[in-house]
């Protein structure tokens, strides 16, 4: 690969110090790899190998203990996500970096369609335009229209996950982090979700993903990195 990577991770380590027990727990040690635009990079490894921790460190939900996370921004600058200030991280999160986890945090009364469109509202899009785009995504993910005005807190696990995925991809991020995005979906909706992920990739997004299913890794990944327990 000759193009410069979208994300370059060098010697990333993460451990947690539990003050109450005076104990340090290591979750990733000296991890290095690269993510390119228009490619899907998958992290594989046994439970406890630190796959999710690495995604969270990139998103800065976790503070990395060591190493660099060099991200090439839309403005052409290289930002070290491990040490960038909080406002830079928040700005990147709202415009360039998306994260889809297995869990959905949403306001208790917000309709599903607004939950999905919320990244667009934050960018200043009108409610009507945001809803139109969100509706199109929800339709493709087979969320019945009569549910769109309800809060996703009342939805089933699979429905919530689809809402979460739709919210993660609606803003067309340059870098998308996926933590088991299809874990509780049935075969049909998994197929639709994967199709949307592939479309996003073909449009130029660099994707870093964790899939629990080895078949999905084989089907989706352009590059695979194997992690071992630290």
């Amino acid at each position, binding site marked *: 690969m000759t193009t410069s990577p979208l994300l370059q991770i060098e010697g990333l380590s993460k451990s947690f110090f539990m003050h109450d027990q005076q104990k340090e727990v290591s979750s990733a040690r000296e991890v290095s790899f690269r993510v390119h635009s228009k490619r899907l990079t998958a992290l594989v490894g046994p439970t406890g190998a630190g796959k999710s921790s690495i995604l969270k460190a990139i998103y800065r939900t976790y503070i990395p203990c060591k190493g660099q996370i060099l991200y090439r921004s839309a403005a052409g600058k290289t930002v070290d996500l491990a040490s960038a200030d909080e406002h830079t991280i*928040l700005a990147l999160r709202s415009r360039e970096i998306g994260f889809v986890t297995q869990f959905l945090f949403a306001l208790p009364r917000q309709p599903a369609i607004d939950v999905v469109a919320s990244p667009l509202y934050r960018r200043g899009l009108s409610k009507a335009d945001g809803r139109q785009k969100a509706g199109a995504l929800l339709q493709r993910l087979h969320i019945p229209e009569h549910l769109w005005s309800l809060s996703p807190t009342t939805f089933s696990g699979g429905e919530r996950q689809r809402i979460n995925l739709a919210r993660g991809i609606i803003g067309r991020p340059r870098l998308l982090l996926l933590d088991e995005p299809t874990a509780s979906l049935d075969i049909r909706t998994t197929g639709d979700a994967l199709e949307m992920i592939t479309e996003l990739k073909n449009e130029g997004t660099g994707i870093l993903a964790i899939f629990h299913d080895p078949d999905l890794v084989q089907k989706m990944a352009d590059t695979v990195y194997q992690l071992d327990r630290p």
Partner: protein
Amino acid sequence: MMRKVLDVKGLSKVYGKGCPYCRDATGPRFNTNICPHCASVVAVHDISFTLYEGEILGVMGESGSGKSTVVKCLYFDETVDGGTAHFFDNHGQYNLFDLFSLNAAQRRWLRYRRFGMVYQNPHLGLNFGISAGGNIAERLLMNGMLIYADIRKRTSELLQRTEVPENRMDDLPGHFSGGMQQRVQIAKALATNPPLLFLDEVTTGLDVSVQASILDLIIEIQDQLKTTMIVVTHDLGVIRLLAGRTIVMKNGRIIEAGLTDQILEDPQHAYTQRLVASAL
């Protein structure tokens, strides 16, 4: 480009006569904010943070940690004993206010036109002797709106936005439920479209469904008006849903500051770890 709205440096407030040892003999290290030498209360000490336009900053901590004192000092409800705070008025005629060196008239001008405050206790934010609409009208009058029809129209807009039934406009706040009193307070605080809003434990003591609707309202306001906010709360759920960044206070000091999801999922300080662990 992000614009700075507020820059606070070294904010301190001591209740009591104070002594030279107050600041060194209190804080998280001693697990107290009461000076052992003179019994003064060091409510907050050396608080610094910067706020950018449109962001929501959470201030979290247990009762007595000094979190409300921070916003009360910034809203001029309390005088300060040290530190500086600069307010950048990006829309006004003047653009920089050194908050703690203003005279009374300038402070009043900021309070009525540029800042909004919603207290935990509606009695602090509302005049219970006049109607809900009257409370809002009072704020509009002070802001130079003098035509009755205009005031009435704007008041009804504000109440509509905060989902207070319009036909209750002329009722006294004392006849409202707790949640609705908070909504009237929010409507009043928003009357002048202030660029900076302080919310002090606004959902505390309300039942869960009312809490949810108030949180919704706050997010909607932020989405539409891009109001910068400081949200003081001890409720981690509120922090998670509202704030992008959070500071954690204990014994009048900031012990940890960071992105909200980082504070909740990867807390660094022993106290924050205990706080998060006991809440989940």
